[in-house]
């Protein structure tokens, strides 16, 4: 049982992710929650780099830590008219809070136990040299329909977001 550098990196990244994710849920100020969320995204990108999935890590940093977090912070600034203190509280309904805790705990125990006792058929290998090229071949080959559908979904979502946020004009 030797501890390699890779293991230490995983432990550090996992700690960052778990602490930041807990901060997203537990912090009372929603701006602090959003900044904590960015830290969690960067930690997940570190996990991808450590899993030698560099392209996914870069996409994670660009899309999540770049675009989505800016979008969230802008939305927070647009909808906060009063003081930003105590804007991210738990639900006042104590039954809902307890039900949420119970459900989360049950799910955690179920998933944790089933993962811990499962023997996964792990294949030791180095992995592909040209992962990005293989991704490109799959996107333009076997998964081209899903790729184009995702492109249309993004277009429709962006147009829908603009119309929803700006408000459509009434022509008649």
């Amino acid at each position, binding site marked *: *049982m*030797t501890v390699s550098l890779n*293991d230490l990196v*995983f*432990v550090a990244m996992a700690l960052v992710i*778990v602490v930041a*994710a*807990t901060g*997203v*849920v537990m912090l009372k100020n929603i701006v602090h*929650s*959003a900044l904590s*969320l960015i830290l*969690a995204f960067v930690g*997940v990108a570190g*996990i*991808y780099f450590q*899993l030698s*999935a560099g392209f*996914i890590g870069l*996409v*994670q940093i660009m*899309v*999540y830590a770049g675009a*989505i977090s800016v*979008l*969230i912070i802008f*939305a927070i600034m*647009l*909808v906060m008219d009063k003081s930003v203190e105590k804007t*991210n509280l*738990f*639900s*006042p309904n104590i039954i809902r809070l307890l039900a949420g*805790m119970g*459900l*989360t705990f049950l*799910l*955690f125990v179920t*998933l944790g136990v089933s993962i*811990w006792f*499962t023997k*996964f058929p792990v*294949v*030791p290998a180095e*992995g*592909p040299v040209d992962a990005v090229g293989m*991704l490109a071949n*799959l996107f333009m080959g076997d*998964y081209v329909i*899903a790729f184009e559908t*995702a492109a249309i*979904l*993004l277009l*429709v*979502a*962006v147009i829908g977001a603009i119309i*929803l*946020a700006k*408000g459509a004009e009434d022509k008649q």
Partner: protein
Amino acid sequence: MIGLTHYLLLGTVVFCIGLFGVLSKRNAIAVLMSVELMLNAVNINFVAINKFITPNDVTGQLFSIFVIVVAAAEVAVGLALIISIYRHRKSVDLNDFNLLKW
């Protein structure tokens, strides 16, 4: 020493934190942020299983890109909806979003 089990457990922990946030917060933007945490947990599982079980393939990474695309679309539409509702109700508290309730 660190194997697939640890990555899946990390994914489980992050997913459960996100689920608790979705079920217990009262700010709609906080609920959206918790959904993002859950999607990230799923992506960790995709990439880790791809790396450890089918290391000569990239299908898991491909599907995690699809998840990122859908998450980006979802957060854009979700935040636009929240801004639109805020303009009418002057609130982002989920307890005030009862327009369809009677």
